[in-house]
């Protein structure tokens, strides 16, 4: 449990730093994909079963496909993986901060906190259906948020259709 958890944390951190500091966005999209995947893996390690599935289906199935499509609209002359100049400095600063922060956590209460975490995982193992009950509350007491989400998605649909309608008739034109 411990080494898998640590590996998930490390890989998610590497993907996050690659998204935030890499210059070429071809790699950035893939790194965000991996960050979402490892984040949902951490949710699985924390006891969740439905919401990691939602992340994988919505994020990786719906959204990042559109992101990967939109990469074709950018004009990158050079495909650089790790970046140049300022972004490399940014990556170094992020990595050093992560190392120092992680060492502080490790130094203070890492073992105790991790033990509590593993105990929580084991306690969550025997009623997983709690999460399904919680999601089912959308239709009982959370109907306001459900209506809000549906209304927001409808408004976004019409917004997108107006925004990309035509070259000279759409909402965004070249002046």
């Amino acid at each position, binding site marked *: 449990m411990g080494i898998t958890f640590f590996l998930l944390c490390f890989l998610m951190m590497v993907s996050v730093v690659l998204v*935030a*500091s890499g210059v070429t966005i071809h790699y950035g999209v893939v790194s*965000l994909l991996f960050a979402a995947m490892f984040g949902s893996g951490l949710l699985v390690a*924390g006891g969740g079963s439905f*919401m990691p599935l939602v992340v994988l289906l919505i994020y990786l199935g719906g959204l990042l496909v559109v*992101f990967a499509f939109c990469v074709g609209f950018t004009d*990158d002359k050079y495909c650089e993986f790790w970046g140049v100049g300022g972004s490399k400095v940014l990556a170094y600063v992020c990595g050093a901060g992560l190392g120092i*922060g992680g060492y502080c956590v490790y130094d203070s209460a890492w073992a105790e906190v991790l033990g509590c975490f593993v105990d929580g995982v084991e306690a969550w193992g025997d009623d997983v259906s709690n*999460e399904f009950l919680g999601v089912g509350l959308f239709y009982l007491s959370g109907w306001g948020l459900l209506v809000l989400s549906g209304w927001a998605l409808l408004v976004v649909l019409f917004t997108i259709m107006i925004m990309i309608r035509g*070259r000279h008739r759409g909402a965004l034109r070249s002046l």
Partner: protein
Amino acid sequence: MSPTNLLFTFSFIIFTIGFTFRHTHLLSALLCLEGMMLSVFLLMATWSLSSNISSFILPLTVLTLSACEAGIGLALLIASARTHNTANLKNLNLLQC
């Protein structure tokens, strides 16, 4: 603070730094914004996994609204690419002073 909470908070901060310092492409800014929303979702999901069952409806709402935001941002990118031939951030200079 548990290690997962610490990790997601760190990733939110790193995505914010990346969103601040990357000005070339619109898509890279959108990627960092998406990453910020993803880390907020993961934080709320870990919080709701350790609290009562009525808190599960909040991260799904946040995920839906972040999907709306990403849809509008990508539509803006497509419209900018169709009218200006590129999707760089320096094209969106109508309010530049």
